[in-house]
């Protein structure tokens, strides 16, 4: 069971899902980093993007990857509107207030979806999704490969954006030192709005990537949300690279846990890693950046 080829297969499987976790967590960590907001409705933007992808395909025959042209602007736009409309009024109150607002948004969005689309599971199956690549017992479909590659590319692209572009620098400044940024003439509020939108747009990208490999359902956001929070804390809250690395670490450790341990004991591996990390390095992999 533990010959090198099997371990490599496990690694590949963990990396594939890890990249997806990474992209989702990157969005979450940017929101926290710039605004100190715990975004409990994060998963619902994924759900939104997946439903848009599904209906674009079933009603208009749009290829899911083409739906990126729809889901990214829509999730970005909704994020910015939600920020200005619902978050901004409470942003300077006690830290719990914005989080409570996002919890409320999460409940509203999930139930709105339940009402509009029913609890029925939907699936998109296009023939080219099932082109396969075999690695021993492990099989990766084209859909999974694109999800992995896409998530990785966007995560790295986002990182480059934050590091190298002017807008990215202004966002980082607002995150690191709000007062200093204000003094430098940066419109911090606008940076926060843009960051919020970018955070939700990460899910706008993940949605079409995941649609070929999962089902679509009002509660699909919950499936990933807990892990995303764990990863954000593991990587250092607000730290972008930490979220990326954390995603990979959790993805791989989850797979290792599943192979080694039965049933519900499997997540113990990733969560023990998480707890152990926090005991010795509470600020996470990296400090806030």
């Amino acid at each position, binding site marked *: 069971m533990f010959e090198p080829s099997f371990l490599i297969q496990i690694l590949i499987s963990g990396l594939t*899902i890890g990249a997806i976790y990474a992209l989702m967590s990157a969005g979450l960590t940017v929101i926290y980093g710039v605004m100190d907001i715990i975004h409990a409705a994060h998963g619902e933007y994924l759900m939104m993007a997946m439903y848009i992808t599904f209906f674009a395909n079933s009603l208009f025959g749009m290829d899911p990857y083409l739906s990126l042209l729809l889901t990214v602007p829509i999730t970005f736009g909704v994020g910015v509107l939600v920020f200005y409309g619902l978050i901004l009024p409470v942003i300077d109150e006690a830290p719990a207030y914005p989080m409570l607002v996002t919890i409320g948004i999460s409940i509203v969005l999930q139930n709105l979806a*339940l009402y509009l689309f029913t*609890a*029925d599971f939907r699936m998109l199956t296009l023939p080219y999704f099932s082109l396969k690549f075999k690695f021993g017992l492990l*099989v990766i479909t084209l859909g999974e490969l694109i999800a992995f590659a896409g998530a990785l590319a966007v995560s790295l692209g986002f990182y480059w954006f934050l590091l190298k572009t002017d807008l990215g620098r202004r966002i980082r400044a607002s995150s690191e030192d709000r007062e200093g940024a204000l003094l430098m003439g940066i419109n911090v509020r606008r940076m926060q709005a843009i960051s919020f939108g970018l955070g939700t747009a990460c899910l706008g990208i993940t949605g079409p990537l995941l649609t070929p490999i999962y089902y679509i359902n009002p509660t699909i956001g919950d499936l990933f949300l807990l892990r995303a929070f764990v990863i954000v804390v593991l990587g250092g809250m607000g730290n972008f690279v930490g979220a990326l690395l954390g995603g990979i670490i959790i993805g791989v450790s989850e*797979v290792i846990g599943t192979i080694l341990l039965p049933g519900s004991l499997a997540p113990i591996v990733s969560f023990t890693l998480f707890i152990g990390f926090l005991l010795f390095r509470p600020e996470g992999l990296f400090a806030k950046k």
Partner: protein
Amino acid sequence: MKRKHLSSSRLWIGILSVIVFSLITGEWVFAQQVKEVRVGALYTLSGALAQSGVRQKNVTEMAVEEINAKGGIKALGGAKLTVVYGDSQGKPDIAVSETERLIQNEKVSVIMDVAPSVCTLAATSVAERLKTPFLATVSFADHITERGYKYTFQQEPKVLEVARQQTIFVDYLNKLLGGKLKKAALLYEDTDYGQTGARGRRTFLKEAGYPIVADVSFPSRTPNYDPILMKLKAGDPDFVLDASYLSDAILIAKTAKKMDFLNIPWIASGTKTEAAYWEVMGNEDPGAFCVSMWGPDISPEANSINERYKAKYGGNLDGVIILTYQGVWVVKEALEKAGSADRDALRNALATIEIKPGPTLFMPYQNIKFNEKGLNTGGGFTFIQIQGGKAVTVFPERFAAKKVDLSMFTKFKK
């Protein structure tokens, strides 16, 4: 002081009036005339399992309308059934608070149940404490009726019986496949539902002589099934007995399909018989077997119930939902037997009732008769196979609509 005697004529007029009065209103006095009987129905109406819960609610409404249209509860002077719904959201703690609300605030006489089994276990302990009869139609984990409760009744046979029937079905398939089914694999979600079933399956498979080469459990709502199925496939099984809820079953079948792992019989303990599964996965998972409680194709009567449901709510009925339909009629029959909406009278009626094959028995059962533990001893199952994108009854042969299709089990083709 002089007492005024009651004259004989006055006495006779008095007695006569009382007799006449009670004859006129006797029905009211003796039959405890109630206008409605309140029945609690605790389903999962939101959350991941909502799809089944909503259908349960629909079929309950349909049964209640039929019963009320036919004159309601005749033993109670035509009292109508009124159902009060609760939503457990699939969570045991909410199931508890909803049960309390239905009993104490809504004052229902009896409660019909909730899935998953963890919610049923929680809710029935509340009903026991509050002395309200609880009819579990859809849950059938082993220890629902093993707690010495007086107010819990379980309509379906235990999970153990499912395991026994699955092994009988494996023997049947094995005969059809020329004895090539040798190695078994178990795949199950690891709450009460999956674990109890797995215990039973291990016992019966061992008795029947099938070694288990892979025994894999998983936490429900896992996002990535690759490593789990890799573990399963590593044992090179000839058939898989699986148990999972809807969202997991979908992902498992998708993952198994890409791994070319569906070339052997998969016999599920539930879920795949539901329309909610094969409407989405029917073409992705052809040939899958599943234990079923019922099918519209087991008899002409079954088909007509299904057509009525379809006309009203759209979509087909399936085994899980017809259990609820049957449950409403069991409540109705018990009320007729008890002649009262009182909780203890109803409880006693349920404990002694016997429903034979006929106009109120819709399941492929021998009868409905609850033993001293509250378990129905007359229950039985069928097996379906997904053919042409939908569930078709294939076993036992007296209920089968079509023969078993073996063409997709390419592992055994030489």
